[in-house]
């Protein structure tokens, strides 16, 4: 009896200690539960994404001819040395970086312009926004092949249009000098709407007070979009650049189905060259190159996320002041 009344007469600090113990056990229980809920996904991802990547990593240190697996063996860094000695490898890296930089830059600029146009209040704007998303949903295969049809030198729509305007017929995909820029046009056609719609969502999530204040201050038109909107949607812009950059470096389907890296090696982007190495039967070499692409992408992702988080943190500190 006395013991119980003692318990009820515990000092306030001891009471809060009890509460915090209870809280801690609840939190521990929650964490266990969280892992339980995550577990299926984690198992699948480790088994089906990370494990294959590790296998790929191991393969990259082996010679492993597709058509003669009996001679497969460990060869250390030889695959990487072979790659670094290969002029086509360096050419493919150069082209991939050129491709990613140009394509993403064009898509960001055009995408922002398109987003500004789609930001208008007018009848039917909802319909326009839905229509413009269609290119994003077209498969790279269907798109690559139909663009080949449009770029046909003799019967294609593109050359008819060019000659209608009074220009010389253009060689588009079929010449070393024009194939790369033609592919860039196709990629920009597909992905600019994607960039535009995300930026549009960013623009529309800006609080109405800001836009109202800008209106009262008579900040309008170009100044409004460059001085007010652009800085406010900076985080969204960074994320879109990251997504597009990674996908541009990884690009395979479109290039493979239209030019297969040609003519010559004018469109030999990294993934396509990697596939050609596979076709030649050098599985170890293919894995090694794949791994280098993965490292390149990871460097970019880490750099980007770092700057993104730093700016976000800075913004938060700014708010606290």
């Amino acid at each position, binding site marked *: 009896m006395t013991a119980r009344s003692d318990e009820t007469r515990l000092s306030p600090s001891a009471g809060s200690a009890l509460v915090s113990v209870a809280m801690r056990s609840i939190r521990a229980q929650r964490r266990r539960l969280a892992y339980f809920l995550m577990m*299926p996904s984690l198992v699948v991802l480790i088994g089906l994404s990370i494990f294959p990547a590790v296998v790929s990593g191991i393969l990259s240190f082996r010679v492993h001819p597709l058509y003669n697996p009996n001679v497969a063996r460990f060869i250390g860094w030889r695959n990487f040395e072979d790659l670094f000695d290969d002029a086509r490898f360096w050419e493919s890296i150069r082209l991939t970086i050129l491709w990613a930089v140009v394509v993403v830059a064009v898509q960001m600029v055009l995408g922002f312009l398109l987003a500004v146009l789609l930001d208008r209040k007018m009848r039917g704007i909802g319909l326009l926004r839905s229509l413009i998303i269609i290119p994003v949903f077209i498969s790279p295969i269907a798109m690559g092949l139909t*663009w080949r*049809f449009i770029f046909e030198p003799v019967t294609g729509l593109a050359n008819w249009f060019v000659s209608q305007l009074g220009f010389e017929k253009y060689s588009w995909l079929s010449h070393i000098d024009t194939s790369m820029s033609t592919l860039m046009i196709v990629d920009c056609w597909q992905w600019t709407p994607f960039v535009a*719609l*995300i930026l549009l969502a960013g623009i529309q999530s800006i609080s109405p007070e800001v836009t109202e204040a800008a209106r009262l201050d008579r900040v309008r038109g170009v100044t409004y979009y460059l001085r007010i909107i652009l800085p406010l949607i900076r985080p969204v812009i960074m994320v879109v650049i990251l997504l597009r950059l990674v996908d541009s470096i990884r690009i395979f389907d479109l290039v493979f189905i239209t030019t297969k890296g040609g003519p010559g090696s004018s469109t030999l982007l990294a993934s396509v060259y990697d596939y050609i190495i596979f076709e030649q039967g050098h599985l170890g070499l293919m894995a090694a190159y794949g791994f280098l692409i993965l490292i390149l*992408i990871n460097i970019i992702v880490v750099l980007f996320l770092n700057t993104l988080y730093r700016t976000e943190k800075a913004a938060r500190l700014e708010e606290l002041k």
Partner: protein
Amino acid sequence: MRQSGLGRVINGLTVLAVVLWLVPVVWVALTSIKPANVINSPTPTFFSFTPTWAHYLEVFERFQFDRAIANSLIAVGVSTFIVIVLALPAAYACARMGLLSGDGWALFILSLRFMPGVVVVLPYFLMANYFDLIDSQLVLIIVYVAFGLPFAVWLLRGFLLDLPREVEEAARLDGLGWLQIIFRIILPMSRSGVAVTAIFTFVFSWNEYLFALFLTYDKATTIPIALQKTIDLYNVLWGSLSAGAVIQLLPMIVVVFLLQHHIARGLALGAVK
């Protein structure tokens, strides 16, 4: 809203931009119903021709589109379903349970989305070969689950962060277990988020090419592989290609119009949150 002259011009510009942007899509749709001689003539014809369904018949008879569509629907449908069932609890754990800072886990999972296909296609090929799964729907389902899951968790987490916590707390007080809360309370409340996530997962696999190319060759081939056969060493059939492309795109367009508002929001969430 007051419309100045300039405003009208910009409105017109907006419409023009969208219409011009879609010219290639319209052109392909028109090509799919043109007779072959019209398609191959050097001067393009826009509307003055007698429409024909010949190309649509051809893709089914000659390029086995019926089988390709069935294969795509099975592989993509089943994998999308599995992805959602797996992703919902994981996204919930990331969004609500303060798991080692949910952000860290979510970022880790998202980073797997950046895996280039060429890095893992070879191990998949070797493993599928080892387990005798080449040219089966099962192997495609496995691949599409692996590749769909990271983005699905990321996207769903964004939607779940938006839900009010009170409802869940009330449900917990009523004595519902976590799985019950997730599938009986959260799932109905985040219907549009789940729908958008399912669509993006579906589209990705529906359009996927590299893995289908490596892991199937006959029985289990999907639409992109069948489409590719209309333009290869043996055929250059622009009409059949266009018909096939329309068939592949049509379900996507229907979905876009059914869920237009949600899709833009989903795109933004996936990128922003």
